[in-house]
Each structure stands twice: as C-alpha cells, then as structure tokens.
C-alpha cells in the first residue's frame, strides 16, 4: 500500500547506510511496516468496537437510573426513558400527566406538550425535561417504539414466511 516516493528507487540500498546517503527503506520492509501500522489501526478500532464505549454515549437515562442519580441531577435538563404505565394517563388542558416505569421504579410525569400520535399505554417513551421535587416536568415526548413488527390483523397473513436476509 505504501509506494516508494518518486525518485526513491534505491530499494537495493541498505536501510541504514551512511548518513550522507539518502536513507531509503527497502520496499519490502516498507510494505511490512505499512501492514503493521494498518494492523494497529484495525486493533485500535476493534478495541473501540468491543470494549470501548459501552453505554457511555448517554442519550437518555432510564427512570430507575434517574431516581438513583436524583441528587446529582438537580434540576438539570436531561432525557428520561421509561414505559408508560397503563391507567396512569390523564389528559390535561395543555398536555398529559402519566407515570413511567423502568425496573419497577416509577416516576410521575407532568407534560406540557402535545404527545405524538403513537403515545399510548405500555409504549416506551423518551422525555425531555427536568425534575421538580419528585415530579418530572417534560416539555417533549418522543416515542421509542421497538423493532418488532406485527400485523394488526394476523388472520390476514396467509403464510408465515420469516425469511432472513
């Protein structure tokens, strides 16, 4: 992958000839070095992929984590994730009141924005807002639907044909 430089044709020269002469690496050594370096790159990327980040890119905190870090969060704005608890949803004039749950930790939510059309009980949501006391004041609801797709009228599906790609 590494080409010798233009004019660097002296591949027959030893790598460390006297200082006065141009020091040109033999092309084979050069190629080996290139592969070695690319190997480092691959390993580095591999480390990144496997070990590296885990959950460090915190797009949201789950309800249970948020309750745990309650003191540290103060009234900072962050994203909170949880499943909408069935039976807790009450529409208010401007938005909606409900509770979210994760790992059996419940958080009371007061929302002041219109919920999206997929908002419904038992669906996971991500809320943008902050704590005030023990109530989470949200000004945006985002629905985090799953990657599962199920036909609304299963009887219409003639054959189950779950092909893999």
């Amino acid at each position, binding site marked *: 992958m590494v080409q010798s430089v233009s004019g660097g044709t002296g591949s027959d020269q030893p790598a460390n000839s006297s200082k006065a002469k141009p020091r040109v690496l033999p092309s084979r050594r050069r190629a080996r070095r290139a592969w070695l*370096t690319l190997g480092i790159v691959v390993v580095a990327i591999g480390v990144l992929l496997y070990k*590296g980040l885990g959950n*460090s890119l915190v797009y949201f905190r789950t309800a249970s984590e948020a309750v745990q870090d309650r003191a540290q969060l103060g009234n900072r704005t962050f994203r909170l994730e949880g499943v909408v608890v069935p039976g807790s949803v009450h529409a208010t004039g401007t938005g909606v009141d409900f509770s979210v749950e994760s790992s059996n930790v419940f958080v009371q939510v007061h929302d002041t924005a219109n919920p999206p059309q997929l908002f419904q009980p038992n669906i996971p949501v991500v809320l943008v807002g902050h704590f005030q006391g023990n109530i989470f004041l949200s000004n945006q609801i985002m629905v985090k639907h799953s990657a599962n797709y199920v036909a609304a009228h299963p009887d219409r599906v003639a054959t189950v044909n779950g092909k893999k790609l």
Partner: protein
Amino acid sequence: MWRDALLVAGKDLRIELRSRITINQILPFAFIVLIVFAFALDTSPDTLKEVAPGLFWLAVLFSSILGVDRAVAIERNDSAGEGLLVYGVDPGGIFLGKAASVFVQLFLLEIVLILGMVVLYGPKIGGWLLIVLSAVFATLGISAAGVLYSQLASGSKAKQTLLPLLLVPVASPVLLAATKSWQDAFAGTSSLGDPWLRLLIVFAVVYLALGSVFYSSILEG
C-alpha cells in the same frame, strides 16, 4: 522514521518561531471565536458555563484548520516538499513531524485559550489531570487528521473551503469526545478511566497510523 519526524518537527517549529505567521493569525482568531460565542449566548450565563467545553474545542478545531494549512503550505515554496523527498526523508516521518509541530502549536494555543475561557465564560474547573490528558490526545488526533487532510486537499484552488468540509466531519468524533471528557472533568465526577478519554486515545492512534501509512501515497501521487 522517528528521527526524520524529529527533524521535520524541529524545522517547522524553527520556521514558525522566526516567522510567527501562525501565532499571529491563529491566536487572535481563536479569541475572536471565543468572544463571538460569548456574545451569541450572553443572555444566559448559565448556558455559557455549561457549554464552555464545547465552545472551547470548537475554537480549537477552527484554529487547527489555519494551523494545518500553514504546515503543509511551508513545503510548497520552491518545491521544498520534493526537496525533502529527494534527500530521502521518510514520508511517514514528514507526516509525524508535521503533526508534532502542529500539536505543539495547538497545545500552546490551548493553554492561552483556557485562560481566556475562564475569564470570558467563568466555568468551574476541576479534574486537571483528565483535562490535560484529554487535551493531549484530542490535540494529537486533530493535528494528525488535519495534516493528512490538508495534504489531501492541497493543490486545489478551492482549498480554503474544501479543507474545512473534509476535516470537520472527520475530526468531529474527536471534538465530541473531547467535549464530553472535559464536561466530565469540569463536573468533577470522573476518573482517568473515562470512556471518552479512551475514545480520544483510539482516535489519536488511528489517525496517526493512517497518516504515516498513507502520506507517502499522497506525496507520490
């Protein structure tokens, strides 16, 4: 390669020391960026404190564009670059040397800039070890990617616009990681096991390695 790198870095830094072209341009530029951010956000001082790390690294990234451009431009006069190759200087060494020289300049810039940030934005700063280490690796990553891309874009008339277009996306993971790591450090909640610091190290290693492998191809082409 390493000896060549030292030679090239020394040469570039000596040129800079005598001409002071970069420092005369970059330092005022970086400060202007900081001040403009402060203007834009001055209605909410709390916001300014919170986003200070991001603004700092944005200022560094913008300034680095000027720096790497200069680092490559040095060799264009009197075909100095070809001269280096004819002398048998290792292309990987040229790359590492230039990256090192840009690194030194940017790092000095950051030291001055962080004082400016404290004065202008007034964030609470803690966790100095993490701050310094992430600054080192972030700057290494930005310098390496910058020199590589500056050489890629060289020879083009539209270089002034092309270089940011190429460099900013490639360097943006570094920018993101540096910002997050500084936020952790400022919040005082972090140790040296910070995942963002690890990410910065990985990026620095990857860009340095890619650069030293590919630089000869670019020079040759």
